[in-house]
C-alpha cells in the first residue's frame, strides 16, 4: 500500500511539472504574439491585438449569433456521430460473423477510410442542399469508415484465450457473442469511436466553411472574408474551447482500456 501512495505522490508531482511546462509554452506563445503586434510592427489584418481578440470574444459571447451557430454545429456533430457509430457497429458486427464477409468488407473499409471524402461534398450539396443535412451526411460518411474498420478488427481479433474461457465455463452462443467477444473488443472499438469523434468535428467545421448558411465554420469564413481579423481569432478561440471540451467528454465517457493483466 505504501508503495502505491509514494507512486501517487511522484505521479502528482510529475503532473504539476508537466502543467507548468504547458503554461510556460502558452505564455511564450502570447509573448511572441505581443511582440509581433507591438515592436514587431505586424499589420492588425494579419495579427490582431490580443486585447482586441479578447474584447471581441466577450462581445461575441453576448450575441445570439454565436449561440445559434454553436447549436447548429453541435447538432450536426452529434447526429452525424450517432449515425456513423450505429451503422458502423452494425456493419462490423455483420461482417465479423464469417471469414468470407470479413475478407470482402475489410479492404472496402480501408479504401473508404483513405479516400478524401471532401471529393463528394459538392455532390452531397447537390443532393441535400446547403443546410444541416449535407453536413451530417458528409461527416457521418467520413467517420463511418474508421469506426467500422476498428470495430471489425476488434470483433475479429478477440484473444482466443477469452473464447477458451467462455467455452470451458459453459457460455452459450449468445453469451459468447455478447459477454465474451463483444466485451473483449470494447477497448479497440472505443479507439475507433475516438477517431470517429475527432473526424466528425473536423469534417463538420470544414463543410461549414466550404458552403453553409450557419454554424461556427460558416461564421469563421464569413468574418475572415470580411477582414474582421480580431473576430475571426475570437471564433477560432471559441472553436478551440469547444474542441477541448468535446475531447474531455469523449475521454470521460468512453470506456478505458481494461487490458494489462500483469
Amino acid at each position, binding site marked *: 500500500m505504501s508503495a502505491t501512495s509514494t507512486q501517487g505522490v511522484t505521479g502528482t508531482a510529475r503532473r504539476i511539472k508537466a502543467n507548468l511546462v504547458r503554461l510556460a509554452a502558452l505564455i511564450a506563445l502570447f509573448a511572441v504574439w505581443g511582440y509581433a503586434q507591438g515592436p514587431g510592427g505586424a499589420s492588425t489584418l494579419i495579427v490582431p491585438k490580443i486585447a482586441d481578440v479578447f474584447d471581441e470574444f466577450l462581445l461575441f459571447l453576448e450575441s445570439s449569433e454565436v449561440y445559434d451557430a454553436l447549436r447548429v454545429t453541435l447538432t450536426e456533430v452529434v447526429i452525424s456521430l450517432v449515425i456513423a457509430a450505429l451503422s458502423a457497429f452494425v456493419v462490423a458486427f455483420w461482417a465479423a460473423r464469417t471469414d468470407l464477409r470479413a475478407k470482402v468488407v475489410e479492404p472496402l473499409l480501408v479504401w473508404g477510410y483513405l479516400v478524401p471524402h471532401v471529393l463528394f461534398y459538392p455532390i452531397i450539396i447537390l443532393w441535400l442542399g446547403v443546410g444541416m443535412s449535407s453536413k451530417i451526411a458528409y461527416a457521418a460518411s467520413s467517420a463511418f469508415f474508421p469506426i467500422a474498420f476498428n470495430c471489425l478488427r476488434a470483433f475479429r481479433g478477440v484473444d482466443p*484465450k*477469452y473464447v*477458451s*474461457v*467462455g*467455452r*470451458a*465455463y*459453459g*457460455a*452459450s452462443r449468445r*453469451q459468447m457473442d455478447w*459477454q*465474451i467477444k463483444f*466485451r*473483449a473488443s*470494447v477497448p479497440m472499438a472505443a479507439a475507433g469511436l475516438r477517431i470517429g469523434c475527432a473526424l466528425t468535428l473536423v469534417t463538420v467545421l470544414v463543410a461549414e466553411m466550404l458552403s453553409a448558411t450557419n454554424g461556427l465554420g460558416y461564421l469563421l469564413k464569413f468574418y475572415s472574408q470580411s477582414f474582421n481579423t480580431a473576430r475571426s481569432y475570437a471564433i477560432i478561440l471559441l472553436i478551440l474551447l469547444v474542441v477541448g471540451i468535446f475531447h474531455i467528454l469523449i475521454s470521460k465517457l468512453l470506456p478505458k482500456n*481494461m*487490458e*494489462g*493483466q*500483469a
Partner: protein
Amino acid sequence: MALQAKNLEVTYRTAGGRSVPALTDINLEIADREFVTIIGPSGCGKSTLLKCFGGLLSPSSGEVTVNGQPVTEPDPNRAAFVFQDYTLLPWKNVLDNAAVGLHFAGRSKAECRTRGQEMLELVGLEEFAKQYPRELSGGMQQRVAVARAMAMDPGILLMDEPFGALDEQTRQKLGSEMGRILTETERSVVMVTHSLDEAVFWADRIIVLSARPGRIAKEIEVKAPRPRSLSFIGTDEFAMIRAELFRLLEVPSAMAEASR
C-alpha cells in the same frame, strides 16, 4: 469421478496441409479422487491431452469418457479448467470472475454472489472481491482462477501448469496453500506441469509423456499418503522418483527405452 481415455490420438494439420501427430496411443484411467500429474518435454502434447480430457478439443480418434459418458463438449460441472495464464476476464471484477461459470449457467445474481464469495474465502481473497484482475498479483489471479473452477463444484479439476507463470517463491507459497484446498475438496485432479518437484510432490501417480508425438512413456506411483507436508521433499521416495523423472526427461535414450 473416473475418467478414461481409450486409444486417444490427436493429429494437427499444418498450414501446408501436412498432418502432424501430436498425441498417439493414449490409454489412461484416472480414478475418483486421484491426483495425477502429467509431465514431459515441451511440445509433447501435455496441454493438448488436458484439453481432450475437458472436451475443449476433440481427438482425431479414440474417445474420452467420464463415468462411462463420452466427453464431446466442455462441461464445467464435470471437469473445470485452471489455465496456465489465469485468463481472468479483465472487464469483470474478482467476484464476478469467480462466479462466471454460474453466471453462464443462468444462476441467480444472489446465488452467484454468495457462492463466488464463498470460493474467494476458500482461496483467501474475500477482501478483493470488488477489485479488478489487473490490480492483483499473478499469484492472486491464479487463486481467483482456482476459485472460478471450484465454484462449479466439478468432479475433476484440470490444471494446465497452474503455477508455471509464477516466480519460485510465489509458487511454493501458493503450492502449499493449494495443497490444502485440493486435498480437502476430495476430487480428481489432473495437473500438467514441467516441474519435476511439482510432479512428484502432488501426485498419486505421475504420467510421463515422450516427445512428439506424445505417448505414455511411463507411469510412476507415489506411495506416500496425501496430504503431504513439505518434509516429504526430504524423503528417499521423493529423491528416487525425482531422479527417475530427471533421467527420463533429460536422457533421450532412457525415454526411448521406456516408451518401447
